């Protein structure tokens, strides 16, 4: 997943949580980057027509940005689900975050041919638990020893 897609996904999730525009600081926190880096990338997303930034309010995705963000989120869900269900990685959230930059969309699509993903995806992604709600449910039923 390229850097722009990681930003779009982060903005989308912050917007969902805050139920409004995402502050640059919240986006920077979500991505563990400096506010200056976040500002710079948000500017690039604006130039590409994927986001709109309003001073003192924050950044909102355009319709095209939302489509891209949802695709990126679906690919992220594939990575999490693949790690949790196929490789049985307990720390699938942390590992998905560390791997997503290296996993291209086409690779995620191939991995998708061996996992069982809900047709609701990515609406079943829960920003607070940083996982698909169905994955989180299984996890709480079978907590790690």
């Amino acid at each position, binding site marked *: 997943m390229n850097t722009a897609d990681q*930003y779009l996904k982060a903005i989308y999730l912050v917007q969902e949580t805050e139920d409004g525009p995402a502050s640059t600081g919240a986006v920077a926190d979500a991505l563990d980057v400096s506010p200056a880096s976040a500002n710079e990338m948000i500017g690039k997303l604006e130039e590409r027509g994927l986001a709109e930034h309003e001073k003192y309010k924050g950044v909102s995705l355009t319709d095209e940005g939302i489509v891209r963000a949802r695709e990126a989120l679906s690919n992220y869900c594939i990575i999490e689900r693949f790690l949790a269900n*196929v490789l049985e990685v307990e720390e699938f959230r942390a590992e998905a975050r560390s*791997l997503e930059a*290296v*996993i291209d969309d086409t*690779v995620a699509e191939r*991995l998708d041919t*061996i996992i*069982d993903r809900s047709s609701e995806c990515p609406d079943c992604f829960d920003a607070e638990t940083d996982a698909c709600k169905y994955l989180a449910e299984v996890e709480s039923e079978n907590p790690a020893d």
Partner: protein
Amino acid sequence: MSVGQRVTSDHQLARLLQIGVVLEEVVEARSTQHHREMDVDVDAELGALLRHAAEESADHRDRLEDLIGELDADSVSYEEIEALVEAQYGNTKPEDFDGVLYDQLCNEETAYKFYDDLIEAIEGSDSTFSVDRDRVLDTLRGIRAEEEEGVEEVTAIMERR
């Protein structure tokens, strides 16, 4: 969240190599399934392509598994991935010979892209690993070159038809 492509630890490298193994196993299992499902006697060229793809993936898997072993990690069993491919195959199988060719092209392109990104991510990091970095890169570059040949091979067949 990590922004940017870099491989910085043995653990991360082993995990990515495991993903490479799974991708190879998916190719091998799907090619075998296509071969089983399609009447490849009617299309000898396609039959040969599928056999070659399965053999090449098995060879790539062996080379990746050597590295994974040196990183003191476990590989992913072929039987496990084969069962997952079979479980989902009904929903994802191609309908005809053209579909099989297209699936093969996706397999080769995806593998090429994966190894290309992985090589770039290793090159972009100055971390040292417990396995010789040059050997990892040589192995991955060798596999990538074969995936590139695979893309060209499938594309040539598609263009002829």
